[in-house]
């Protein structure tokens, strides 16, 4: 009997799930800062070029692979060439490593959602985050115990993810109809609050005023390609898995355009909430705005809470709105990563979805306990850096080489044009065979050069080897072992 693959209930469900996956914490805490630090408004030019020459072509590649091969990444690559299955497993395992720490960041958000009702961080948000919430130790060698607040935050996160995923893609489709529009509405609330505060104009000038001289710097262009690549949930197996639940005659190219423009649009919109608030913080504290600008967890858990405390009214309400925004942005990115792993297990061994979901969630929860420990933040930082710099960029490079030089861009393009609403010309071939490999190759080399030049963030070498290189080498070894592992009956070998 031929197994019936699950299907999205509608194209809208698929698109919302793909947009929800692409739009995550990085859209609010990374994009606005990257734009500001790389020429302000002028950065939009390299960003748009990167979107058209790498982001959208790669998205088309991943959607095309999922729709054509109707399986998780390891299935897709093994159908191209038997010995390439391990590259698919590499992306699946990278997704697994990411979920183990991404859920911990969500655990912090749960804690802050409750803290925001009383503005518990007070006047010293930085001290509160480090000593009260994380209870950070002196270094990665000292793990310490596990703060209960983060532990329960992690537990809640995994229960929520399990309940969303275990019933299948149908439930995911219904959930994203709420979790994708919600953060956009909440960001809208924050934008309205932000732009009506004194000093907001100063912040927005900082965000958008163009410095065209920066466009002559290669690092600005590299930053644009990096932002596009990491923001679109590429190379993690997600887009291949999500599109594998579409029928074989589904659109490829237009879905890629919609997902990519929606992701960029939400990032751009979030920048108004962040920079108007930073402008207000600079105005009220009397310091230069360049002194309050930050990115990543520092922005979300220190700078913005500081600004929220100083709001003229309803500070607790806007604090709750901000952390609810982070949670709703993060949840669909997290369950899309989990879905990639669950689908890979189902496709390989044919096990029941409930069981696969339970195994992945439980394993990720247990490994995540390392990052919830008092010294866990150091390990989270190291693993995240290595996975992004080497894990994902290398998979992206592998994907374009496989399609560009093994499968062939022309037959692949003919397939995607045969099912798509917008046809692509031979420019797509050049992007996949020339532009994207060069950019990803340069990104990999420059990251490696940076590692040789100085120890990342001054961490001891043993920690970088254990949390960085060992994780990457481990992923590659396990990828080969999984390729060799016996699959379900009928699996192509």
């Amino acid at each position: 009997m031929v197994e019936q693959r699950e299907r999205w209930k509608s194209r809208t469900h698929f698109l919302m799930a793909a947009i929800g996956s692409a739009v995550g914490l990085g859209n609010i805490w990374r994009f606005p800062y990257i734009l500001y630090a790389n020429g302000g408004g002028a950065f939009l030019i390299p960003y748009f070029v990167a979107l058209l020459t790498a982001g959208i072509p790669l998205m088309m590649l991943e959607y095309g692979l999922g729709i054509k091969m109707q399986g998780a990444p390891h299935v897709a690559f093994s159908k191209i060439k038997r010995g390439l299955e391990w590259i698919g497993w590499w992306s699946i395992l990278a997704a697994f490593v990411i979920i183990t720490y991404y859920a911990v960041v969500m655990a912090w958000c749960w804690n802050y959602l409750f803290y925001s009702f009383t503005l518990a961080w007070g006047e010293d948000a930085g001290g509160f985050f480090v000593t009260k919430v994380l209870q950070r130790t002196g270094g990665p060698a000292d793990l310490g115990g596990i703060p209960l607040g983060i532990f329960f935050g992690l537990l809640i996160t995994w229960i929520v993810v399990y309940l969303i995923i275990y019933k299948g893609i149908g439930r995911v489709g219904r959930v994203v109809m709420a979790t994708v529009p919600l953060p956009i509405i909440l960001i809208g609330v924050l934008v309205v609050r932000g732009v009506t505060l004194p000093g907001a104009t100063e912040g927005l000038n900082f965000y958008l005023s163009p410095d065209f001289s920066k466009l002559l710097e290669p690092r600005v262009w590299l930053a644009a390609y990096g932002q596009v690549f990491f923001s679109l949930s590429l190379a993690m197996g997600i887009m291949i898995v999500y599109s594998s639940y579409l029928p074989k005659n589904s659109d490829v190219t237009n879905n890629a355009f919609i997902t990519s423009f929606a992701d960029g649009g939400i990032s751009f919109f979030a920048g108004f909430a962040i920079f108007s608030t930073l402008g207000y913080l600079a105005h009220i504290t009397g310091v230069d705005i360049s002194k309050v600008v930050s990115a990543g967890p520092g922005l979300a858990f220190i700078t913005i809470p500081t600004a929220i405390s100083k709001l003229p009214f309803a500070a607790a309400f806007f604090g709750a709105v901000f952390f609810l925004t982070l949670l709703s942005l993060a949840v669909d990115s997290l369950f899309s990563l989990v879905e990639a792993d669950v689908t890979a297990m189902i496709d390989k061994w044919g096990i029941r979805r409930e069981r696969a979901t339970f195994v992945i969630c439980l394993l990720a929860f247990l490994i995540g306990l390392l990052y919830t420990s008092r010294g866990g933040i150091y390990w989270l930082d190291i693993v995240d850096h290595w996975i992004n710099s080497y894990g994902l960029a290398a998979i992206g490079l592998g994907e374009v080489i496989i399609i560009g030089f093994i499968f062939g861009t022309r037959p692949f393009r003919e397939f995607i044009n045969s099912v798509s609403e917008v046809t692509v010309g031979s420019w797509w071939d050049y992007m996949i065979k020339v532009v994207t490999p060069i950019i990803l190759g340069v990104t990999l080399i420059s990251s490696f050069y940076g590692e040789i030049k100085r120890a990342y963030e001054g961490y001891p070498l043993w920690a970088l080897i254990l949390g960085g290189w060992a994780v990457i080498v481990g992923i590659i070894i396990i990828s080969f072992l999984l390729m060799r592992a016996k699959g379900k009956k009928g699996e192509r070998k």
Partner: protein
Amino acid sequence: MTTGAWIMLIFGCVVLYGGLVWSLLRTKKDKKTQL
């Protein structure tokens, strides 16, 4: 806001939201059957 900031604001909106609207207007396939 400065003139430069306004210009880049309009540019960003046209490129990103214009691109999104352009792609949404090109959807022809049925939402359910994909045909």
